[in-house]
């Protein structure tokens, strides 16, 4: 049987000798792909369990591409391409690519720094420059922020690293500040007590740190009061709206003058300048 098969599929010895390195190279690449996938899965599992999820995302990609690149180099070596010449070519290519892909590489490095610095994690509410939203993902080149208007904003990692980032999810409680202007005829201390009591009536306002009402500024036609209350982060938006509404209602009910912004203007005869 064996003799029959050999006689039927008879390949020239030279061809077999020629094909063997190519077959080995192909096997190396296939093994490389399998290994890269296994490694990236392992890295995801390891970093996902012990670190931030964005580190797992980037680690997975890095592990995959580094393993695949190395297997390609070994495969090229199998078919007789000198490793030293490949590395030399890679060096030249790296320089060329570095110039061409300066921004991309900068973004990748910035992404790594962002993982180390951890100014936020996926799911945090952040403000980056003028973009306010929830961090939806952190990639090799860019991060995605989903705004509250449900728009997906892509921010390059380099820009993110250079920007001022405000993280609204880092701490458990937030302070609500409500600014009120009252007339000079208002009994300030009495109104401060009224506002403090009103804030304590709101179920979201924390008893401690206790709400405070401070005189902020003495304006041209009004006294500015600033009412400060602390709430749990999740209650902030609703509490701010409720407190602003209730505060105006209560002040109007109490007969407090809420002067509108005033501008004094007049017409004068050019011949007679104003005194």
């Amino acid at each position, binding site marked *: 049987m064996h003799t029959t098969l050999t006689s039927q599929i008879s390949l020239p010895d030279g061809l077999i000798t020629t094909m063997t390195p190519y077959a080995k190279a192909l096997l190396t690449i296939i093994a490389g792909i399998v290994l890269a996938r296994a490694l990236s899965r392992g890295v995801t599992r390891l970093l996902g369990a012990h670190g931030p999820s964005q580190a797992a995302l980037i680690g997975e990609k890095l592990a995959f591409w580094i393993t695949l690149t190395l297997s390609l180099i070994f495969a090229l070596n199998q078919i007789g391409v000198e490793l030293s010449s490949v590395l030399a070519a890679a060096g030249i290519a790296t320089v060329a690519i570095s110039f061409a892909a300066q921004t991309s590489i900068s973004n990748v490095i910035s992404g790594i720094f962002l993982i180390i610095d951890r100014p936020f994690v996926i799911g945090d509410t952040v403000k980056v420059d003028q973009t306010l939203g929830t961090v939806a993902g952190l990639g090799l080149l860019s991060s995605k922020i989903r705004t509250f208007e449900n728009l997906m904003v892509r921010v390059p990692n380099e820009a993110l690293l250079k920007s001022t980032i405000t993280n609204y999810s880092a*701490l458990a*409680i937030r302070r609500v500040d409500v600014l009120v202007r009252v007339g000079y005829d208002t009994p300030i201390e009495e109104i401060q007590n009224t506002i403090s009591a009103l804030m304590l009536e709101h*179920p979201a306002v924390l*008893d*401690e740190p206790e709400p405070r009402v401070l005189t902020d500024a003495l304006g041209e036609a009004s006294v500015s009061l600033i009412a400060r209350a*602390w709430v749990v982060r999740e209650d902030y938006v609703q509490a701010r709206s409720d407190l602003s509404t209730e505060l105006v209602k209560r002040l109007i009910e109490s007969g407090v003058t809420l002067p509108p912004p005033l501008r004094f203007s007049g017409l004068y005869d050019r011949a007679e300048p104003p005194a």
Partner: protein
Amino acid sequence: MTSVVEHEPKPSELDEVKPIWPRDLPLTALADGIEAPYGMLGGELEPGGQLMLDACGEEILIGVQESATTLRLIPTTGPTPLLVFTQPRLRCAPGRSLNVEIDVSLHLTLGVGGPHVNYTTVHEIAPPGARRSLYGPVDAGIICRSVYTRAATSLDIRDPGELTARLKLSVVNSSAVTLEVSKVMLPVDSLSLWQHPSSGIFAGTTHMKLLSVREAELRFSHERPDGCVPVLGMNGERTDNSRPPLLFTYAYKNKTGLEYGF
């Protein structure tokens, strides 16, 4: 440091007291409405194991096991730590001690189950008007439930069905200056609840040792008060576990400029 000695009641002792809690209500009886400590409880068992529960005005549709027959009510301290503000504040001279009683409002926890099926917690009713406070600095504090309560050497007798736990607070000032206790933070599971058929619920003794302006040690005694039996968990488990002493060392003023000590 004094060690906490636990007193395990003998089964015969437990049999002497007829406990008020848990309160078991047949699900079928909910249709007419039943008066509970914080309001009316109503409900209707719908086909397919669904219970439409009206818990003090709040309607909730709960998926329950078809073999469930009973709504079980038990008092608990709730899911968050308690921050107890005493009225009046307690001032203690150096080397002296204070012993007061305070009443701490409790949550009402509802579970559904029956003789042949385990009870599962399905809802928790907070005391009416429950508020929250932060214990600690604004960047690292713990959200607690505020409890405003009167402190006295001896408080009046309560209705045994009232959902408050009477707690004995013992303050010892071992520092060299007079110190004031404006609040006491009681972590989750720090209190053991006991019940007495005619005197209500008790929460043992909390020992507070003032070490300095910024340091206090809290120890929770889990000794069974006279004539009491423990308030058991949803499936009859003991909840009066011992807890190691806690040391509170906060320097709020240094960090925030505000007075948020104990």
